[in-house]
């Protein structure tokens, strides 16, 4: 892999440079609803029926999901309930939080605020505390705090962006809580970008009608996550790292009563009994739906979705997947990594191999993504990379034409660093992009208080569904994990105070196994996946299944 761009790509870059001055003040109109429908139907991967199937068992039987997800749900448990001793309790807590990303950490902080002692909380997480998609979010968080904006507008934007499929009461919670969340962040000490007068710098995002995006450079997710984690550490909230949950536990009254955890290094199981359990495991990018590369964290394998579903929580909107319009398409080492929407918010335009601007840069994500796919595969106006992938240019140098020299370095340090490592200076040259698998729009059904339909189980963040309907707008996921992490934390805390648990059981897992065989599903698939398989094929072919004893 050579550094920078090969000569033939430089030829195309010249065309981009030639048209740049004509494009500076040009913004194509946003697409009319009919054209938007057409481009979605013809080019968005979600609208291809062959990538999906009906789920055959469980509480949402008959609903459609990507094949990769349905197969995760139609799979055996990792454990055999008859081999588990539930009488020896290893952790006995008021609130168990599964997942140590944004939602889980926010939930923990608010459970403490609600009166639960830190020692009566446990965060169990698969990798390290903070390792999550929350950490990787770059662009920002939507909050309608400006004078020309309001929660009403934010509501309309979110629900229109979701094609009116969102759960309206959840969108209300999202948009009405947003200013309170930002106020809390201000108290915690998060370094948001601000104007001289202290008001927050606002940027536009795809599908937003006002400048509502609040950011911290292009490390917004990292800044939020590291402050939340720092606060959880200050409060001494116990965290077990490298200890994922593998199944939920219930009691004989049908309540969720904790989880079975597993030490990822020794494979020992632990029984964690809890009066309230919060699912905060994030999304499913590492399932590589329709073979797309992903922006997601290594651990994003839909574990919580699987465990929650086995415990009886219905899922919704799982037939829709968010492909971020701009994943890196070149060089090969970074294919699929996120090129934040903020690059377009700041003024960069997507242009084709001939330097032509072909879409408004800030359409809602699904429309923008479908337009990029159309340009490459419908109109054959993409640029082919040395490894055979296609992409379009994102004309980043335009940002400095519009906003002055130095803007990119100041506002997008993470992006500059990403490309610099591979010999590309994005302040001078455009970057090649193509849609990448980014976000699980749907998920476990929740109520406005963060509870699921199964008593004792709460959920927040990417694992839950309904907030974004079938398409999430930029900046609403950081907001989602804060709003519903908080609500789940508060309500899990108050639930814990008034709950008594019966005898622990894994009967729901046994029953789920029965449903599998009743439905005639014969498979050796097991789930949750925990970690994706990336080992080389040649090595795996020669892999001996031998346990080495010392």
């Amino acid at each position, binding site marked *: 892999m050579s550094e920078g761009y090969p000569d033939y790509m430089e030829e195309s870059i010249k065309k981009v440079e030639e048209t740049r001055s004509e494009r500076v003040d040009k913004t194509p109109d946003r697409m009319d609803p009919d054209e938007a429908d057409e481009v979605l139907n013809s080019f968005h991967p979600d609208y291809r029926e062959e990538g999906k199937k009906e789920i055959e068992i469980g509480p949402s039987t008959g609903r459609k999901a990507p094949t990769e997800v349905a197969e995760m749900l139609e799979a055996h448990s990792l454990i055999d309930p008859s081999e588990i001793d539930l009488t020896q309790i290893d952790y006995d807590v008021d609130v168990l939080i599964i997942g140590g990303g944004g939602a889980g950490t926010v939930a923990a902080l608010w459970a403490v605020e609600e009166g639960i002692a830190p020692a009566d909380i446990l965060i169990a997480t698969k990798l390290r505390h903070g390792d999550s998609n929350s950490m990787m979010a770059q662009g920002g968080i939507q909050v309608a705090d400006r004078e020309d904006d309001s929660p009403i507008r934010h509501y309309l934007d979110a629900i229109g962006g979701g094609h009116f499929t969102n759960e309206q009461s959840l969108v209300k919670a999202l948009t009405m809580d947003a200013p309170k969340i930002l106020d809390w962040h201000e108290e915690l000490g998060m370094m948001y970008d601000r104007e001289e007068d202290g008001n927050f710098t606002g940027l536009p995002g795809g599908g937003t009608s006002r400048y509502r995006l609040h950011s911290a450079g292009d490390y917004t997710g990292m800044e939020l996550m590291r*402050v939340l984690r720092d606060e959880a550490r200050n409060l001494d909230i116990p965290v077990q790292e490298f200890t994922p949950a593998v199944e939920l536990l219930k009691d004989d009254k049908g309540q969720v009563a904790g989880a079975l955890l597993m030490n990822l290094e020794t494979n020992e199981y632990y029984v964690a009994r809890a009066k309230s359990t919060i699912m905060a495991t994030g999304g499913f990018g590492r399932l590589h739906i329709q073979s797309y590369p992903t922006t997601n964290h290594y651990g994003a394998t839909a574990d919580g979705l699987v465990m929650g579903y086995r415990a009886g929580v219905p899922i919704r909107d799982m037939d829709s997947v968010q492909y971020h319009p701009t994943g890196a398409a070149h060089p090969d080492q970074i294919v699929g990594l996120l090129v934040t929407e903020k690059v377009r918010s700041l003024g960069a335009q997507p242009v084709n191999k001939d330097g032509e601007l072909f879409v408004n840069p800030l359409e809602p994500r699904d429309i923008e993504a479908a337009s990029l796919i159309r340009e490459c595969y419908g109109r054959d106006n993409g640029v082919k990379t040395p490894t055979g992938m296609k992409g379009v240019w994102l004309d980043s140098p335009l940002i400095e034409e519009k906003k002055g020299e130095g803007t990119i370095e100041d506002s997008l340090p993470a992006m500059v660093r990403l490309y610099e490592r591979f010999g590309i200076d994005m302040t001078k040259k455009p970057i090649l992009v193509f849609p990448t698998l980014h976000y699980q729009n749907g998920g476990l059904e929740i109520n406005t208080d963060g509870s699921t339909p199964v008593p004792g189980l709460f959920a927040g963040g990417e694992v839950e569904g309904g907030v974004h309907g079938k398409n999430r707008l930029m900046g609403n996921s950081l907001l989602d994990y804060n709003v519903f992490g908080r609500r789940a934390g508060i309500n899990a805390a108050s639930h814990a105070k008034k709950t008594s648990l019966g005898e622990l059981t894994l009967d729901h897992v046994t029953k789920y196994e029965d449903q599998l065989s009743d439905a005639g599903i014969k498979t050796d698939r097991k789930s949750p996946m925990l970690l994706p398989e990336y080992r080389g094929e040649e090595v795996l072919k020669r892999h001996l299944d031998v346990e080495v004893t010392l």
Partner: protein
Amino acid sequence: MKAEEDESNEEVEMVEIFVMGKRYKVPKGLTIMTALEYAGYKFTRGCGCRGGFCGACSTVFRTKDEYKLRMDLACQTAVEDGMFLVQLPFMPAVREDYDVEEVDPEEHDNVLLDYYPEVARCVSCNTCTKACPQDIEVMDYVQAALRGDIERTAELSFDCIQCGLCSIRCPADIKHYHMAQMARRIHAKYNQPESDELAERVKEIKEGKYDEEMEKLVNMEREILKKRYDERDIKEEG
């Protein structure tokens, strides 16, 4: 729709790497992380976001004919022929608890030194800066902290991914990244002015200014809601 297979039958160029001394041949162009996976390693530790944001994959290596140890992130660094490498699974650095409400810099002589007195042991060797995979001027922010310049400490350290490589190399055992975390929160909370617009909006919501209209929206029929969405004005320039 992802990368189509390259149809040409070009031989993939291979390079030789040494993982904790053991030799493997891997395709040139892979990152250290994907090269290890290619070689058959499955990560539990030492792998996180795979995108340069989480600091889980700190790696120490040297290349052929080089005496210097280099440090970088496995997910962001391409393998080189003759690379000897090891991953650092964990950094057992001390971190001090504090109450963010109790660290007003106006009320302390040097609040960072109160919690991290070892900052004063800095010998200005610049090893921390050289170790940083983010190219942060680590020593400069440690020196700023020593002078009590919280703003500069916060700003210089802002891109820190908390991988811990600075601290593992430091001869004075300074815990740079934990100290800097504290500095950034203090700066944001005590030095940055608060937003009037936000305070006003929070007040309006508390007073119920939007309740009635929001209730209408929540119960609005889809077609009417859709019309309202399509007709909303969009601010294109801010």
